[in-house]
C-alpha cells in the first residue's frame, strides 16, 4: 500500500492512537448542548470513572470538575475563548493512590461557532508526583524557616526584654546605691555632729539631690508656742518661707504636723485662688507640687519635712519610700541631737554642782586648818596654770583643779589636838600627821568622779628623791599633778606669814625652790615654775 492509499482520516486516527499511547491522553467530543457525543477507545486508561463518560451524558454529570465552569465552556463553544484548562486535578484511586489529571477544552472547529468541543484528558500523574514532591519540600522548608524566624524573633524579643530589664535593674540598683550612700552620709552627719543645723542641712541637701526636687525645707516644731520654724531651706527663691509664721494645723505644712500624715498637693497652680493667705508663700515660690511629711520621733511631732517642685512630679513607690526614710532620718537627727543637748546641759549642771561642793569642802578645810586666807584658791589657780604650761588637757586639768582644792582633805582624819597644836609635834604625832594623804585616798577613792583627782591629795608630799610620804615614790613615779602642786604648795606656804614667822621674800623662796630641785622637786617642774614666776608672783599678790 502506498502513501496515497492512506487517507487523511486514517492518518488522523492513527496519529490520535499513537499520541494517546505515548502521552496518556484520551479525548471526548462534546456537542453544543455540552453533552458527550463520543469518547476515545482508551478513555478507561486515563479516567477512573470512564463508565460514566459515555455518549449522551452531560459533560458536567460525567465530570464534576466542570460544574461551575459552564459559562467558560459556552464561551469556548462560541469561539469567544480559545481554550480552557483544568490542571492537576487530584483523583483518589480505589487503591488509595492519587492520579493527577489535566483537562483541556478546545473548540471542535475554531472556524465555526457551536460546532462542539474537544475535551482532552491527560494523565499527568508522573509530573504531579514530581511536582508534589518538590512542593512538599518547599513548603516544609518554608514552614521550618517560618518557625525558625518566629523562634528567632521570639528570642530577639526576649533578649531585648531581658536587656531592657537588666538595664532597668542596673539603673534601679545604681539609684538605690546612690540613695543608700546619701542615707549613709546623713547617718554620718547625724552621728558626727551635735549641731542640729549642720545635720539637717546635710539631710536636706541629700534629699534635694536624690529626690530631684527644687525646694527642700525642714521646720522644727516649737511645742510651747505651737508653731513650726524653718531651720533649713534649700532651693528657695525668696525669703517668703523663712518669714512665714506657720502655726500647727495651718498651711500646707502645719496641717501635716497636726494630722500626723504625709500630705500631697499635686497641682497647686490649678488651685492658686483657693490657697489660704498663709500659703501664699508657695505661690510666691512658683511651686506646683508639694509634699509635707511630719517628722515624728518617739511618737512626738518634732517638725516637718517639706518638698516643693516647680514642675510636675511623677514619683514612683521607691521615691516615696526614700522620702519616708529621709523624713525618718531627719526626725531621728532632731530627736537625738536634742537628747544630746539636754544630756550635755545636765552634765554641765552636774559638773557645776560637783565643783561647788568641792569648793565648799575646800573652804571648810581651810577654816578648820586655820590656813592662810585664800591659800587653797591660790595654789589651785597656780597649779592649773602650770598644768596648762606642762601640756595637760582640759579634762586632766579639771581633775587637777579638784585635786588641788581637796589637797589636804585627808586632814579631816587628823585629830584637832594634833592638827591645831600650837607647839611642836612629837614623833608619834608626826606619824599620825603623815597619814593624812592616806586618809585622803581612803576618803576619795570610793567617790568615782573624784578618783581621777586623787593624784594631788594622795601624792603631794612625795619627794623627787623618794624621801617623801606616804609611799616614798621617786621621780616620775610621782604623778605630774602632784609634782606640780608640791612646788606651788611650798611656794605659797613660804611666802605666807605664819604666827611664828614672817613670810619669806619671793627671791628667798625662789632660791629655796631652786636649791630643792632634784631632791624635793622635779627639776623640770622647777624650771617650768621659774619660767612662770612673774605670773605666779602676780597671782600670789592678787
Amino acid at each position: 500500500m502506498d502513501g496515497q492509499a492512506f487517507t487523511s482520516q486514517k492518518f488522523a486516527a492513527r496519529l490520535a492512537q499513537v499520541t494517546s499511547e505515548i502521552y496518556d491522553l484520551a479525548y471526548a467530543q462534546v456537542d453544543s448542548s455540552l453533552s458527550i457525543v463520543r469518547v476515545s477507545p482508551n478513555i478507561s486508561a486515563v479516567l477512573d470513572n470512564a463508565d460514566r463518560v459515555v455518549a449522551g451524558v452531560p459533560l458536567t454529570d460525567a465530570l464534576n470538575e466542570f460544574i461551575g465552569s459552564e459559562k467558560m465552556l459556552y464561551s469556548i463553544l462560541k469561539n469567544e475563548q480559545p481554550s480552557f484548562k483544568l490542571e492537576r486535578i487530584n483523583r483518589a484511586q480505589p487503591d488509595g493512590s492519587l492520579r493527577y489529571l489535566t483537562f483541556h477544552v478546545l473548540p471542535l472547529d475554531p472556524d465555526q461557532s457551536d460546532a462542539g468541543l474537544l475535551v482532552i484528558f491527560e494523565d499527568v500523574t508522573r509530573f504531579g508526583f514530581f511536582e508534589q514532591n518538590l512542593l512538599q519540600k518547599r513548603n516544609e522548608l518554608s514552614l521550618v524557616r517560618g518557625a525558625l524566624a518566629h523562634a528567632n524573633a521570639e528570642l530577639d524579643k526576649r533578649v531585648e526584654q531581658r536587656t531592657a530589664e537588666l538595664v532597668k535593674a542596673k539603673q534601679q540598683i545604681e539609684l538605690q546605691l546612690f540613695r543608700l550612700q546619701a542615707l549613709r552620709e546623713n547617718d554620718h552627719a547625724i552621728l558626727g555632729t551635735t549641731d542640729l543645723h549642720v545635720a539637717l542641712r546635710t539631710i536636706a541637701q541629700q534629699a534635694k539631690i536624690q529626690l530631684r526636687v527644687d525646694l527642700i525645707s525642714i521646720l522644727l516644731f516649737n511645742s510651747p508656742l505651737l508653731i513650726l520654724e524653718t531651720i533649713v531651706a534649700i532651693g528657695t527663691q525668696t525669703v517668703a518661707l523663712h518669714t512665714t509664721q506657720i502655726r500647727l494645723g495651718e498651711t500646707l505644712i502645719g496641717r501635716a504636723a497636726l494630722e500626723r500624715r504625709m500630705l500631697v498637693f499635686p497641682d497647686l497652680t490649678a488651685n492658686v485662688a483657693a490657697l489660704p493667705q498663709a500659703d501664699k508663700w508657695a505661690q510666691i515660690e512658683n511651686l506646683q507640687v508639694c509634699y509635707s511629711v511630719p517628722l515624728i520621733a518617739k511618737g512626738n511631732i518634732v517638725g516637718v519635712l517639706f518638698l516643693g517642685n516647680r514642675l510636675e512630679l511623677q514619683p514612683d513607690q521607691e521615691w516615696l519610700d526614700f522620702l519616708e526614710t529621709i523624713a525618718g532620718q531627719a526626725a531621728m537627727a532632731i530627736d537625738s541631737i536634742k537628747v544630746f543637748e539636754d544630756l550635755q546641759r545636765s552634765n554641765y549642771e552636774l559638773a557645776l554642782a560637783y565643783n561647788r561642793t568641792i569648793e565648799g569642802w575646800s573652804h571648810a578645810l581651810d577654816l578648820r586648818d586655820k590656813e592662810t586666807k585664800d591659800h587653797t584658791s591660790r595654789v589651785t589657780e597656780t597649779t592649773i596654770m602650770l598644768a596648762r604650761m606642762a601640756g595637760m588637757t582640759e579634762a586632766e586639768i579639771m581633775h587637777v583643779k579638784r585635786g588641788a582644792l581637796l589637797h589636804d582633805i585627808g586632814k579631816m582624819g587628823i585629830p584637832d589636838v594634833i592638827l591645831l597644836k600650837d607647839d611642836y609635834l612629837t614623833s608619834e604625832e608626826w606619824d599620825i600627821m603623815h597619814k593624812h594623804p592616806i586618809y585622803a585616798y581612803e576618803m576619795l577613792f570610793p567617790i568615782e568622779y573624784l578618783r581621777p583627782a586623787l593624784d594631788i591629795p594622795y601624792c603631794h608630799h612625795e619627794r623627787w628623791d623618794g624621801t617623801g610620804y606616804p609611799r616614798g615614790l621617786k621621780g616620775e613615779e610621782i604623778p605630774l599633778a602632784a609634782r606640780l602642786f608640791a612646788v606651788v604648795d611650798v611656794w605659797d606656804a613660804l611666802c605666807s606669814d605664819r604666827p611664828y614667822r614672817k613670810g619669806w621674800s619671793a627671791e628667798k623662796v625662789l632660791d629655796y625652790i631652786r636649791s630643792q630641785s632634784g631632791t624635793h622637786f622635779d627639776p623640770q617642774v622647777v624650771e617650768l615654775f621659774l619660767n612662770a614666776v612673774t605670773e605666779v608672783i602676780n597671782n600670789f599678790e592678787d
Partner: protein
Amino acid sequence: MTTIQKKICLLGDFGVGKTSLVHRFVEGRFDDKYLSTVGVKISRKVLKRSYGEMNLLVWDLAGGSGFESASNTYMQGGAGALIICDLTRYETLTACENYARQIRILNPGVQLVFLGNKVDMTKERVVSVSDMLAALSVFGERTFFLTSAKTGERVEDAFNHLAEKIEKGV
C-alpha cells in the same frame, strides 16, 4: 425534593489546614501528617436543607505562599469560599486579604467566610481576635470562625454558615 449543586473553594496559604478541614468536614477524620496539595482536589458533601439537599462541591486548592495567586480557573464559578488563615502564623492572615480580593474579582457575588484554623494550638497562637476582625472588616464581614481540623471544633459550623450565606445570597 429539591437538590442544588454549589461549588465552594477553600483558599489560604500552604499549610493553613485546608485539606485537613475538608477531610474533617467530608470524611470526619484528621491526619497529623502534612501533605502538600498540588492542583486541586474536589470533594463532595451533601448537606440536608429544609427544602431538600445542597450538593456541595468542595474545591480544595493548592495553597499559595505569601502573595502568590491561586489559579483563576479553579475559582471560576465558585458560589462561596472559605478564606483560611493559620492562627499560629501571622503572615497567613495577611495573605487572606489577597485571596478574598482575587475570588471577588472573578466572582463578584461570591460569599465569603473567614476561618482562623488550628485554634487548639493555644501556646503557639499569634493571631488575635482583633487581628481577625481587622482583616475581615475590609470585606464588610464581621463573622469568623476559630476552627480546629484536629478536634473538629466549629468546622461543621463554618461550612454550614457558608452554605446558608450562599442560599441567602448575602
